[in-house]
């Protein structure tokens, strides 16, 4: 393709091709359509003379490449030496536009169609619009428009035309179209209509693989993982807790009628030796207030357990009598071990309101 003396239109086509490729690499939707591979071909490769636009896909690719955001376009243009340069270049051939045979290039045809067709908002970026405007060969457009054709028809016509003309003087057939493409809906419809199953897959892929879907799915996945981790955390491998079974000495350590608080700080229990239903027994009470779980204090002078949080009071037996506590203190398991020591088992609880204080594991009889 290395023409030693490229025409102005050649230069334009190249510029456009570069800009389009730069934008195409940024456009996600573009990459996921079947037309993507052809659009990603660099201008040099595309310049092979055989590669005249043959399929709709090619045209659509070109159209989509043009549908890049204005910012990207300007950026690409700037890379080529700034918008001003492009504009200057555009203005130059404007005077002598009909001279070149460039109008025969498919890109030019498309460009001219777009520029004229009302449906396509050609003026999306001034640079491109200007470029497109310069290369319009008035005759063709007029004839097409005179026929009263729609924009889509014009594209079709243009394609047929291009397919017919095998001899394209400038071999840059797949360059980007300068102005905005057809609306997305029309594009999708066309693809489906022409390519069938492949395109259906493409539609699905393009719906699923959007950033929104990806972002939400990864967030949900991360949440599920952390939820599972939390659930795992609830079941630790090792529990560092005081033993639930321990010995608290022989029964005669606890004098009749007394409440022992010596195990309160270590094991959260009080040991009481008191008369219950006519017999002297020792029992262990849990130090957790049945209202909201504070630790009450044993008040020797008043002979009661009194909670400092909301004022619940319990008799020596553990039965609640004042304040808001709804039920008596709980007894924990107590038995006389084989060696004559009292053994507390905190893993079992005995609640009076459920009649469990009658259970013989909840107290030890002393004489």
């Amino acid at each position, binding site marked *: 393709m290395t023409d030693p003396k490229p025409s102005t239109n050649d230069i334009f086509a190249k510029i456009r091709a570069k800009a389009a490729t730069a934008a195409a690499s940024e456009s996600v939707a573009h990459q996921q359509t079947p037309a993507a591979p052809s659009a990603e071909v660099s201008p040099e490769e595309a310049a092979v003379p055989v590669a005249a636009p043959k399929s709709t896909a090619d045209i659509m690719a070109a159209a989509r490449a043009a549908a890049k955001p204005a910012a990207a376009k300007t950026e690409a243009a700037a890379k080529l030496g700034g918008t001003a340069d492009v504009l200057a270049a555009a203005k130059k051939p404007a005077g002598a536009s009909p001279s070149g045979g460039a109008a025969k290039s498919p890109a030019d045809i498309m460009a001219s169609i777009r520029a004229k067709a009302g449906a396509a908002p050609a003026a999306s970026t001034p640079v491109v619009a200007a470029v497109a405007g310069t290369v319009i060969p008035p005759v063709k457009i007029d004839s097409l428009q005179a026929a009263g054709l729609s924009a889509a028809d014009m594209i079709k016509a243009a394609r047929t035309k291009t397919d017919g003309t095998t001899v394209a003087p400038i071999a840059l057939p797949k360059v980007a179209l300068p102005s905005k493409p057809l609306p997305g809906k029309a594009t999708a419809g066309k693809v489906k209509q022409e390519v069938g199953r492949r395109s259906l897959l493409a539609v699905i892929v393009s719906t699923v693989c959007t950033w929104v879907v990806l972002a939400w799915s990864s967030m949900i996945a991360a949440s599920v993982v952390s939820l599972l981790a939390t659930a795992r955390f609830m079941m630790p491998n090792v529990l560092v807790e005081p033993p639930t079974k321990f010995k608290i000495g022989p029964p005669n350590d606890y004098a009749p009628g007394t409440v022992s608080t010596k195990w309160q700080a270590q094991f959260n229990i009080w040991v009481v030796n008191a008369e219950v239903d006519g017999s002297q027994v020792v029992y262990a009470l849990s130090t957790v207030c049945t209202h909201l779980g504070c630790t009450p204090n044993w008040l020797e002078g008043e002979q009661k357990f009194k909670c400092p949080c909301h*004022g619940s009071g319990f008799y020596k037996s553990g039965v609640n009598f004042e304040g*808001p506590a709804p039920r008596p203190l709980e007894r924990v398991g107590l038995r006389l071990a084989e060696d004559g020591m009292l053994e507390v088992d905190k893993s079992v609880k005995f609640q009076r*309101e459920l009649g469990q204080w009658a259970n013989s594991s909840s107290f030890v009889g002393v004489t």
Partner: protein
Amino acid sequence: MLNSHPDLTASVLIGLGWYYLILFAMNMWWTVRSFKHDGEFRNGVPKAAFWSVVTSLLLMTSAYHFTYPPDGFLIQMPLWFKDFFNAYFSNPVLYFLLTIVGLVFMIAAREWWIKPTVAWTLLNLSLLFMGLSLTDYDFRQIVGKPDNVPIVAMLFIVAFFTWIYFTRAVDNDRRIAEGRPLFEQEDNEKVLVWPDLVYTELICMVVLTAVLIFWGIALQAPLEEPASSMKTPNPSKAPWYFLGLQEMLVYFDPWLAGVVLPSIILGGLIAVPYIDFNKRGNGYYSFRERSFAVTTYLFGFLPLWVALIVLGTFLRGPNWNFFGIYEYWDVHKVEAATNKNLSQFFWENLGGIPKGSGPSDILLRESPGILLVIGYFAALPPLLGLTVLRTYFARMGVIRFLVFSNLILWMAILPIKMLLRWSFSLKYIVGIPEYFFNI
């Protein structure tokens, strides 16, 4: 001789000297203001003369505090007053009823107490009361505690904002009655965001930061010993803003006071726009046009929240007993409080059935309480709608009125239960500890 319980020390006197000096400065400003605005008595003496006497007395008081040794100090809260206060105001029933009376008085006499001179006098009296009370050791122990300082500040701030509300509202009510334009229309406060608002915000930000820094330096953080599940501090108090909630927990089961009632408070506040059909009073202060809404709100806020915070802070001592504000917090204070459930009252006291031999079936045993609660929430709303709140019922429609009346009834159960507990030692109206269901 070492006095472990000193009423006065030199540092307290110096602190009080500064306190009265601030009072002096405040009243000096007020005297100037009074001279400019208040006019004269009938005999031609300016009314500011009275304030100048007050101001000079305050200056002398301040100087006296700075110079005199603690022994035999004269300006103290008199003992008879302390005894009287301790004897009567550690009684929760009286305390609570007084807050209600105070609320009623505040609303009824609003045109009187919002007058600048009256309000200033009330402020001076409350500050004087506090200054004198600070000479008491036990009062100082409670009020001077770093965590309790914000509560004292809050009391004055609440009073100040209530005063602002009533001043504006009474003013607007007068304007409406006389057919004059509203204060908000006449004195349009609209200003520019830049510079007016932004500058104001900047100044507020700087002042607030300065106050917080000063506070952080002057008052030490009330840290205690490391927390232990085996040992609960006595008394164990919630953060001051939750003391009302903690007080509720004394009267109700945890699920009710800790979950249901707070949710209803929040839900009720959210539902206010739905319930409130009164379109007047929008964008301006007014009491007469929104008397019911304002009274209900003030009842829920002042006696049921602020007063309970004060009660929890100053009147609740070790073992969550009641103490007077000048009373020593004795851990061994005995307070007989044997509570009974309604079912016990019903079967044992009314029915004459000996203790323990009442009905064994839970539902039958608690049927009086269950019927009472169902009647309260199901029968009272229609009754209210047909009698006292007839106009509301007509204007609100059935569903809205039911929501509204139930919210009011929920709000009312707190004082009702409190008074029942204090007066009759009633523990629970429905008490089913077997299934953790107590009301």
